[in-house]
């Protein structure tokens, strides 16, 4: 799983620019599905019809980034954020755009206080406006480049591990459930980092009775002696966030599945996240949506760390939960 996740992390896919990584994921599940398609908002979906109620798996494929918004006569780029990105995190870093162009981010040395995006300029080495327009036209998205690093077999640090690891989990769970003849679909959702904009449209098309929504969970085990969520201590039940509360039947199914597997389970209560879970549960007449996760240090930031062993536990947990709900 680790090497597959690291290949997925190589795709630069800020919200709205997910097409390439969505295709890679659909290629990975196509042979297990009756049909696959990409919708108007960029969600990639696979459907396998089978016995019993329909369970949807979802994981967002996008990541926060930047977008070219202006180019000056000298060929320097101005950028704005895509999703929740701080200008100070970009200063002095290398940006890699979706078309492969790379640039160095300069911060205005006279800017005072907290930096904003007006104080940033990206140099892509262009000698003129025209050259820059060819290299990175207005509207091109990019992300801060962070080479990935592995420690041992399972620890991975890099860009976009949140939520490419979740996509790998969702794909694998889909394949396992489809192989068992269950009625299942998977949505690799677009535009989550800008506010969970596309997941509801995915659920609208799929009309599931149940949804398991896979995403990173913020680990606080660096600065807290008594952390709520730690790497290496197992998958996470996302009990509540700003847009959803897991219904009791769903919570019991997850906990029962974890007990049956003798798996450590962590619980997340988040005040911050606007999740796909909240959007999916309210599509059409509604469905039971359950947020499941894997711990991530610096979740949502350009460089983050996760333990793939937690994600392997999450695959088992999601499969067992689905069997409890559908069985």
């Amino acid at each position, binding site marked *: 799983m680790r090497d597959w996740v690291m290949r997925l992390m190589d795709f630069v896919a800020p919200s*709205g620019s997910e097409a390439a990584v969505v295709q890679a994921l659909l290629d990975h599940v196509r042979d297990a599905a009756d049909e696959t398609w990409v919708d108007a908002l960029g969600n990639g979906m696979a459907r396998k019809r089978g016995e019993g109620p329909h369970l949807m798996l979802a994981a967002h494929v996008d990541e926060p980034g930047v977008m070219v918004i202006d180019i000056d006569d000298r060929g320097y780029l101005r950028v704005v954020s895509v999703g929740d990105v701080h200008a100070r995190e970009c200063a002095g870093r290398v940006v890699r755009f979706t078309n492969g162009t790379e640039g160095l981010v300069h911060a205005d040395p006279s800017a005072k206080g907290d930096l904003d995006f007006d104080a940033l300029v990206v140099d892509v080495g262009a000698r003129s406006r025209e050259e820059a327009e060819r290299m990175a036209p207005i509207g091109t998205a990019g992300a801060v480049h962070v080479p990935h690093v592995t420690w041992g077999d399972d620890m991975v640090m890099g860009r976009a591990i949140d939520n490419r690891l979740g996509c790998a989990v969702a794909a694998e769970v889909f394949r396992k459930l489809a192989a068992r003849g269950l009625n299942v679909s998977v949505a690799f959702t677009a535009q989550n980092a800008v506010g969970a904009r596309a997941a509801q449209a995915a659920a609208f098309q799929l009309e599931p009775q149940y949804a398991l929504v896979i995403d990173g969970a913020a680990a606080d085990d660096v600065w807290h002696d008594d952390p709520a969520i730690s790497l290496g201590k197992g998958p996470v039940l996302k009990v509540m966030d700003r847009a959803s509360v897991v219904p009791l039947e769903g919570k019991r199914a997850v906990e029962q599945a974890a007990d049956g597997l003798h798996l450590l389970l962590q619980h997340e209560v988040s005040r911050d996240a606007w999740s796909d879970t909240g959007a999916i549960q309210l599509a059409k007449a509604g469905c039971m949506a359950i947020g499941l996760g894997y711990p991530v240090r610096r979740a949502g930031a350009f460089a983050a760390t996760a333990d793939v062993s937690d994600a392997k536990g999450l695959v088992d947990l999601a499969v067992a939960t689905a069997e409890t709900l559908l069985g």
Partner: protein
Amino acid sequence: MLLKELTEAFGPTGFEDEVRGVARRELDAMGLSVRTDVLGNVIASTGEHHPGPRVMLDAHMDEVGLMVTHIGEGREDGGLLRFRPLGGVDPRVLVSKPVLVGERRIPGVIGAKPVHLQQPSEREKPIPMEKLYIDIGARDADDARRHVKPGDPVAFATAYDELPHRMAKAKSFDDRVGCYILLEALRRWKGALPVFGAFTVQEEIGLRGAHAAAYQIQPDIAIALEGTVAHDVVGTPAHGQSTVVGKGPAITVQDGQTVAHRRFAEFLWETAKTRNIPVQWRRVKGGTNDFGAIHRVGKGVLGGAISVPVRYIHAPTQVVSLDDVMHAIDLVVAVLDEIAKGGFRP
């Protein structure tokens, strides 16, 4: 003249009746199928029997304005009207502006303490909205109540005028310019495609009408026609201008609530270029338009926005280039032609 009539029509958010009347009159004269939905959106359609894609063109009828909240009862403020904004209004643009209050269009002026009487500390800061009031010349509260009641909408009293160099000034170019483009595009376009014109309510307080309009239309493609921010004036570096007046309609790559469908944005751009219609990118992220609501409806909707640059947007007097308006109409008609020819497949 239709643009003058549209901009001078009274239409703060939630009170779009007069604008709706103008739109319906024009649409009826074109012989289109027209209906008004429960929220007050006007939806016109043509070519519904043709195979898709179904195209929704959107413009919002409402404008930013004010609402009366309280009629002063005291010895000092008796008969003066307190108000809150309807939509995003900067209190700094309000002082001394003439307004029209309520359905009877009672004239008034926004008053504030004269500079002679202000404390030095008061002069250093803009006057906050709660210290401003509307003076309709009433002698006292009872006198004012004969003309006005809390909940009455307030619009700026600005006449449309043409300026040199094909420019014009008026209130509410945001988004009567979109209503005008939509009407003229529907008047001109003759082709085989299901096209829906949605004149929506309550955009300025959260894109509310457009959501319901899109739900009814279920479009495959949607384009919001908007007036958008331009700040191509003194003291602004090129990257801070957002759009430039006179350089053609603007196409969005990202705003507060949408990330452009890249292939569709490029299709709009290429359509303009091949027909020699001037066009520019909207070079700012802030703000949004009805497409922010439309694209999330149902199974998701592909599309974007075509916007006319507006100087002093959301202020009592706004300025546009009439050439930009005409080019926007040209672009909308060209885009419909291309879609009908199969030049863009959803």
